[in-house]
């Protein structure tokens, strides 16, 4: 009889639902995030439950489950996605506590979600082979002199969509359209592979410039991917573009509280916990992103390239979500695969 009950309880999931818990839907897959949640549980007694998956599928599940969705927090790695969640009314206010408002720059949060860590999308080059022009801007990459020299991943990648979205925001649709046409002409090859593959292409001499996020280089430098990758990474350095105007394009990993969160207070506690110095230190040392609060240094693998570069702090990252579909449209129209 006991066995029968045990079996039934497995199937029907009658787990002991503890009163103190918080449920996360996450499209971030970092093992280190789980370690951080354990620390949170140790400190507060609140259990953290996680489902990770692909963004689109999680999104669909949250929409379809509606008010029965057990998720409290949605955690993802692109501001555009957070903005889209807000627009669709899937978040509730809560990520705007006094603590959060005080510590997080305004362009990296809204009333509905908050950035947890930052990443910069930069230009990589091999300093022994390439001498980039002074005051290089993203906008310059469409010029003739870069013909056949640039690698970047495909247009279906959300980081590219956000980058283009931010440029549309600043330069307008028509100008950006022209820019993209020029940029695509300058590609060294058909876009393929992830960000790390772009950096490797520069290291291997297949191209002179790669556009990719900062933490990929640090991941390689960390040795987590072996000696060869580490040595390859040492051949390239990042260039932080647009220093003379708005600053380098920034994106965030962030989270918001879901509309029907059953454990809203715990969710706020977790968000605030993730924004403490200890947690931020843990995050930057494992994922190699930039901290989102002041007083925490990025991991030295990434800090060695400078921490004083000008970040684009004027663009509210929530515009990415509004401009992403325009961005995708002009990218594909220009033949960006």
């Amino acid at each position: 009889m006991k066995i029968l009950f045990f079996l039934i309880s497995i199937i029907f999931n009658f787990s002991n639902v503890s009163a103190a818990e918080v449920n996360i839907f996450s499209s971030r897959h970092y093992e280190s995030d789980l370690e951080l949640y354990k620390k949170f549980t140790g400190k507060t007694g609140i259990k953290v439950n996680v489902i990770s998956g692909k963004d689109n599928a999680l999104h669909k599940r949250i929409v379809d489950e509606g008010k029965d969705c057990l998720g409290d927090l949605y955690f993802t790695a692109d501001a555009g996605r957070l903005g889209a969640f807000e627009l669709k009314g899937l978040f509730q206010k809560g990520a705007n506590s006094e603590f959060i408002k005080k510590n997080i720059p305004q362009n990296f949060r809204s009333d509905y979600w908050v950035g947890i860590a930052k990443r910069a999308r930069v230009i990589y080059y091999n300093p022994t082979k390439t001498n980039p022009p002074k005051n290089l801007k993203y906008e310059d990459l469409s010029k003739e002199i870069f013909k056949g020299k640039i690698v970047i991943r495909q247009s279906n990648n959300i980081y590219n969509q956000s980058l283009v979205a931010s440029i549309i925001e600043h330069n307008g649709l028509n100008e950006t359209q022209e820019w993209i046409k020029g940029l695509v002409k300058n590609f060294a090859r058909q876009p393929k592979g992830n960000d790390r593959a772009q950096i490797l292409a520069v290291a291997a001499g297949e191209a002179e410039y790669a556009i990719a996020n900062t933490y990929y280089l640090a991941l390689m430098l960390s040795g987590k991917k072996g000696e060869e990758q580490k040595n390859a990474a040492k051949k390239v350095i990042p260039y932080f573009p647009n220093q003379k105007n708005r600053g380098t394009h920034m994106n965030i990993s962030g989270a918001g509280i879901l509309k029907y969160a059953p454990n809203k207070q715990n969710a706020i506690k977790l968000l605030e916990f993730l924004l403490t110095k200890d947690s931020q230190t843990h995050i930057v040392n494992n994922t190699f992103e930039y901290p989102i609060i002041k007083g925490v240094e990025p991991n030295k693998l990434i800090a060695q390239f400078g921490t004083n570069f000008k970040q684009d702090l004027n663009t509210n990252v929530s515009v990415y979500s509004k401009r992403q579909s325009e961005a995708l449209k002009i990218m594909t129209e220009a033949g960006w695969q």
Partner: protein
Amino acid sequence: MYKNFNFWFAGSLLVSLFVAIPLFTVFFSFFNSTSEYYDLLRNTFLKSYIINSFIILIGVLSLTFIFGVLSAYFVSFYNFPGVNFFKWALILSFAVPAYIYAYSLTAFFENYGTLFSLITFIFGEGNYNKFIPKFDGIFGAIISMSFSLFGYIYVLTRASFYHQSHNLIEVSKNLGYNAKESFFKIILPSARPAIIAGLSLVAMECLADFGTVSFFSVSTLTTGIYNSWLSFDDLNTANQLSFVLLLLILTLFYIENYSRGDAKYHQPTQGFRKIPKIDMVGKKAQFVSIFCFLLFFISFIFPTTQMIFWTIKFPKYFDLTNILLLNLNTLTLVIFTSIVLISFSFLINFGNRISKSKILNYLSFFSISGYAIPGVILAVAFITFFSWFSDFFSSFFSTTSIKKIFIGSILGLIMAYFIRFYSLAFNGIRSSYIKINQSIDESSYLLGYTKFRTLRKIHYPYLKNSIYLVSILIAIEIIKELPITLILRPFNFETFATKAYANASQDLLEAAALPSLFIIFWSALLIFYTSKHILSEK
């Protein structure tokens, strides 16, 4: 009889409808919205989705045809060094899912990848990247799928060759054909139904693939449906794409079934004589041995070694308790799903048999839809349907919500697997069931056995072997399954596949190696265990 008919009919109908849920959900979604995505898609993407899908399809079909038919031919008709080993070693390729193959392929050939390290290790420092071929994009997807799917064609073609009448070979000899001529004029045409059946299975798997193409960021019909449905809430587009895809898949399924029917007539019932194999010697034998070895090496040893290499090189990703838990989780899913699937398939088959209803046979056609729909679409359709059902149920009976019983639970996972693999279980048991002569049933009734007793005492012993075989096939499928598990699992619940995926998507294929290795290990073990059945009985 009439009473029975009703009961079995209702049962069959219910199961068929259940399995067809995703199909209906995708086609007749319960809400409707359109977006500007449609125009964008129609103008720019749709064509490229279809073209990509076709390029991949044709590439994979060509390669699997060459690999599968040639290896089956060599193994069936010739003696060459290692033939008895290759006979079963070639089916081990089933153990490596295409997405895991893709991980190995990419990491091995990328700039500064494993091959680069190897060359550096042997020849010292140098700029070798230029000379290393790159397997990525569409090309990578074709290679990954071909090497993990050619087994279908190998197994089916080999079975057909195996059962080929000895006379056929005699005839070709008498006609004075040489080896090449008899291969193209006699052997190949007579195995055509089996080859076509294999190709259709490969084509279905290929069109439904999501993991591999999304790893290589290639947009296909399947990713198109996924994106238009999920990212843009654009059901019209999703439905249209689904329609094209399903039409393709249903056609393939029809071809497969039809060819299988044909294949039956090629199996001699009496006077079957094993074909005496021709001894190969010299260069020819070497060539054939090398061909089979390369095929085995590239399809199985290569990805497995890459995973073992990483596991040893990066021991810090090893976590014993985690591994035990993953084993336990996988085992739970396998056991429950197998029990449910086998019981239903067995009973419905029995019902079809005793009620002798034609309509029931047609209904069973629905059972394929779970297999036809890509896993990732099935999972999402499952969520949509049960959300709707639960809302309807709770408002009708004024109860609290029952969503969490279905979504994010083990039960939900088992139900979704049921939909996905019902066709496998049902048809697997059916193919053995139809071999039991109806007159045996009648004799049993004459002896005073009830229907149920006939089932227990007569049918079950006959079918025991195929039940065993089918459960192992289900186990292998579940161990490898990714998209359904990923989105429907409960909180904090991981399988090898989800773990490998999570690590791979943070660009740490090194950490994905151990869970991947476990997928390969368990699948290979189960395949090894059943290789006798797979190789002889089919």
